[in-house]
C-alpha cells in the first residue's frame, strides 16, 4: 500500500517539477516557424492546457499503461523505455555477476587471513574501489584497453542476438561479449568492493562463533567448515545486499552507459533531460520506481525463504 502512495506522490512531484522547467517548444520547433505553426505544435503536444489538466490526462493514461508520447521520437514513452530496458538489464546482470563471482571468494579469503599480505591488499583495493569515481574509472578502462592496447571496443553494444526469440542481447556472440566486458567491469567495481567488505566482515564474525568451533572440534575438514558452516551463514546478509544493490546498479548504469555509449535506459534518460523530452523523463522515473518496489518485495520474500529465524517468527506470529 505504501508503495502505491510512493508511486503516486513521485508521479505528481516529478510531473509538476519536470513540467515547470524550460520550454520544450523552443528546442523542438524550428525557430523560423511562424506563430500559427507554433500554436499548432503546442496544441498537438497538449501543452496549451493548464498544468492540472495535463496531469489528469497523464494520470488517466498511466492507469491504462500509457505514459504519454515522446516529444522527440513521437512514439509512446513507455515503449521507448521498454525497448532500451534489455540493454540496461544485460549490463546490470553482467556487472552483478562479476561482483559476486569475484567478490565473495576474495572477501572470504580476506576474512580467513585478515593479517596476511593478500588480505591486506584485497582490503586496500576495496577502499580504492569505493573511492574511485565510476565515470573516471570508465574513462581509464577505455584509455588502457581500447586506446593503448586496442583489445576491446570502447562504445556501443555490438551486434545483438535474440534470446528466446524475444530479448536482444549482446553476450551470445564474441563480438557482443567483447563490447560488454568493459562497461560491465566498470559498473561492477563499486559492488565488488562492497561485497568484499561484507563477506570479509561476515566471515570474521562467524569464525568466532560457537558452531564453527564445534564443527572444528568434530574434526571436520577445513573446506567443509568454511564451505558449509561459514558460507551458509554469511549468505543471508549477502543475498539481501545483492538484491537491494541490484536496483542501485541499474541506477548507476546511467553513468556507465553515458561513458560507454551503451544504448540503455540510462543513456535515454540523460538524452531526454538534455532535450527536455518530458514524457520520457517522467516515464523513466515511474518505471524505475516500480522496479525498485518490485526488487524490494522480491528481496523480502527471499529473505524469509533463506533465514529460518524469519520464517519461524512469521509462522508463529
Amino acid at each position, binding site marked *: 500500500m505504501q508503495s502505491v502512495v510512493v508511486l503516486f506522490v513521485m508521479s505528481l512531484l516529478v510531473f509538476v517539477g519536470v513540467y515547470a522547467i524550460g520550454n520544450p517548444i523552443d528546442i523542438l520547433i524550428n525557430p523560423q516557424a511562424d506563430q500559427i505553426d507554433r500554436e499548432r505544435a503546442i496544441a498537438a503536444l497538449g501543452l496549451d492546457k493548464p498544468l492540472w489538466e495535463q496531469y489528469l490526462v497523464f494520470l488517466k493514461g498511466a492507469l491504462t499503461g500509457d505514459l504519454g508520447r515522446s516529444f522527440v521520437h513521437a512514439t509512446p514513452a513507455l515503449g521507448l523505455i521498454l525497448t532500451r530496458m534489455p540493454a540496461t538489464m544485460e549490463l546490470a546482470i553482467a556487472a552483478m555477476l562479476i561482483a559476486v563471482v569475484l567478490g565473495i571468494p576474495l572477501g572470504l579469503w580476506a576474512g580467513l587471513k585478515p593479517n596476511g599480505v593478500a588480505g591486506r591488499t584485497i582490503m586496500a583495493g576495496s*577502499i580504492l574501489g569505493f573511492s574511485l569515481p565510476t*565515470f573516471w574509472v570508465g574513462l581509464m578502462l577505455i584509455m588502457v584497453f581500447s586506446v593503448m592496447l586496442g583489445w576491446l571496443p570502447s562504445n556501443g553494444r555490438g551486434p545483438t542476438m535474440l534470446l528466446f526469440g524475444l530479448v536482444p542481447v549482446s553476450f551470445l556472440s564474441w563480438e557482443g561479449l567483447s563490447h560488454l566486458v568493459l562497461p560491465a567491469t566498470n559498473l561492477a567495481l563499486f559492488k565488488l568492493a562492497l561485497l568484499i567488505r561484507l563477506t570479509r566482515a561476515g566471515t570474521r564474525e562467524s569464525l568466532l562463533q560457537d558452531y564453527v568451533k564445534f564443527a572444528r572440534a568434530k574434526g571436520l575438514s577445513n573446506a567443509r567448515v568454511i564451505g558449509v558452516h561459514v558460507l551458509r551463514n554469511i549468505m543471508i546478509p549477502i543475498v539481501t545486499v545483492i538484491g537491494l544493490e541490484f536496483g542501485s546498479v541499474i541506477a548507476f548504469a546511467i553513468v556507465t552507459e553515458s561513458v560507454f555509449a551503451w544504448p540503455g535506459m540510462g543513456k535515454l534518460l540523460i538524452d531526454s533531460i538534455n532535450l527536455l523530452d518530458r514524457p520520457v523523463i517522467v516515464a523513466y522515473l515511474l518505471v524505475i520506481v516500480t522496479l525498485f518496489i518490485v526488487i524490494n518485495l522480491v528481496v523480502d520474500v527471499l529473505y524469509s525463504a533463506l533465514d529460518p529465524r524469519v520464517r519461524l517468527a512469521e509462522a508463529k506470529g
Partner: protein
Amino acid sequence: MSTVVPAVPEPAARAAQSPFARIASDFVANPVAVFGLVLLALIVAAAVFAPLISPQNPYDLAQLDVMDSKLPPGSKSPNGGTFWLGTDDQGRDMLSAIFYGLRISLMVGAASTVLALLVGLTMGLTAAYLGGRIETLIMRIVDIQLSFPAILIALILIAVLGQGTGKVIAALVTIQWAYYARTVRSAALVEKRKEYMEAARCLALSPARIVFRHLLPNCLPPMIVVATVQVAAAIALEATLSFLGLGLPITEPSLGLLIANGYQYLLSGKYWISFFPGVALLATIVSINLVADQLRDVLNPRLSR
C-alpha cells in the same frame, strides 16, 4: 583499539587532557590517517591559494593561446614556462585548471555538506525530541529517500530544478540531509534516556536550551564522521553530474567538467586532459575517506570494526 601505542598517555593522564587533545593524539597514532590528513591539507591549500600558485589564470581568455592547445605534459609554453600537465583543447594549462577546478569542487562539496548538516540536524533532533506523529513523518520520508540511490535522486532533482551551481548544491542538500537526520536521531534517542537529560528537564530549562546545549553536543561525534564521509560523497556526486553535463556551468569548470572535456580526446590518445583532473579528484576523495576512517575509530570505539 587494543594495541598499546607508547605515544598515547595512560588512562589517568588521559582524563586530565581536554577531549580535543585526546582526539588529536589518538588520531596521529595511525600513520595512514596522518598521510590522508596531510594530503587533504595540501589539496585544500592548493584550492584556496589557486590564484597565487597557478601558472596562469584559466578563466582569462587573453592568457590562452589556441596554438598551445592539446600539448602533452612537460611541453614548453611560448613565454618560457612549462605546461607540467599539458594543455586542454583551448590551450589552457591543465595544472592551473585543476587548481581552480578543485576550488569549485571543494566549495560545492563543503557548502552542500554544511547546509545538509544543518537541515539534517534540525530534522533529526526535532524527530527524536518531539516523537509522535512528527517523528513518524520525518523518518518515513528519510526511509523512502534512502531506499533510492543518490545518483537517481540527484538526476531527478537536476531534471526538475535545472542546472547551475546553486541548484546542484540544492540537489546535494536534498539528498544528504536524510543521512544526517537518521544518524542524529538514533544518537539522540540514546542520549535522551540518560540522566543528564533528566536533570536538565528537572531544572525546567527551556526545550531549545535542552536540545541545543545538552542534547546536541553529545550527538556530535557520530555526526562528524558521517559529515566527513558525505563531503567525499558530495564531491564525487557533483563530479558525476558535471561529467554527465548536468551539473555546474561550463564557464567555471569543476573537476568533473574538466574530465568530461577530455573525454572526446581520450580516443585519440590525448589522455592527460582527462587523466590528471581525475587523479586530483581521486586524491581528494581518498584523502577524505582515510581521515573519515580514522575519525570513526577515534570518536566512537563502538563503531570500529
